[in-house]
């Protein structure tokens, strides 16, 4: 439960989500991670620490470098983003199915009325 809480609060920050998105493409050094953001390296390192403590990323030692990559929990979190967006959209479109069914029903009713009107006109 604790780690789930930590993961959610780690994901609540847009910079950290962007870092995860970058790491989804593969292992990356801290310098490379810092590049797209207008942030100092200590600030980025702080974000990395939060992600690491939440179990979303892991580090490897390579000489003086400490490249980071997604932990399996991080990969699952990324999948969840898409899954949840998908859910919200699916919910919308299920509702839209209902709205469309209503439009079609109305149209059929109108066509039927028009036919009746035509028939009545014909009799006149």
């Amino acid at each position, binding site marked *: 439960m604790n780690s789930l809480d930590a993961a959610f609060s780690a994901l609540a920050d847009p910079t950290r989500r962007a870092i995860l998105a970058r790491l989804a493409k593969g292992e990356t050094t801290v310098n490379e991670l810092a590049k797209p953001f207008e942030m100092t390296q200590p600030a980025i390192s702080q974000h990395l620490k939060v992600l690491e403590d939440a179990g979303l990323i892991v580090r490897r030692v390579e000489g003086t470098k400490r490249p980071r990559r997604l932990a399996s929990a991080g990969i699952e979190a990324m999948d969840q983003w898409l899954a*949840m967006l998908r859910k919200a959209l699916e919910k919308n479109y299920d509702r839209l199915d209902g709205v469309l069914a209503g439009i079609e029903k109305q149209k059929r009713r109108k066509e039927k009325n028009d036919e009746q009107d035509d028939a009545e006109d014909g009799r006149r």
Partner: protein
Amino acid sequence: MSKMTLKTEGDKHVIVTRRFAAPPEAVYRAHTDPRLIEKWLLGPEGWSMPVCINEARPGGKIRYEWTNGKGGAFHLTGEYLELEPYSRIVHVERMHLPDPTPDNRVETRFDPDGKGTLMTMRMTLPDAQKRAAMLATGMERGMEASYVRLEGMI
């Protein structure tokens, strides 16, 4: 069976497809008539759209405001670029959370599919970083729904 597909393409695109039982004209109208939009474009359970402005003409404005009735609220603004009734819409939109998300250019196509419609939405974000941020926005709304469910369980 899921009728919807959602996938990323290249660095900047997100593609959504969905089939509908109604003809393109009806699906197009449901995307451009505010009285219809406010009935379905609501996201997770429990949200409503008290403000729905949709001026379906080139240069026309879009503004949707959502609330969950529990203090949660955000809005979306956008502009129409092109409209080809009843086959194609191009517009730009952004969420305000309250800071605006990057502009998302959306091309929506409504193609006849038997007696129904195949809708294809192609979103274009400025770059991969911003696309990730937009997808994360979806997560936030999804998380909101999760919290609501959790509240129900506790």
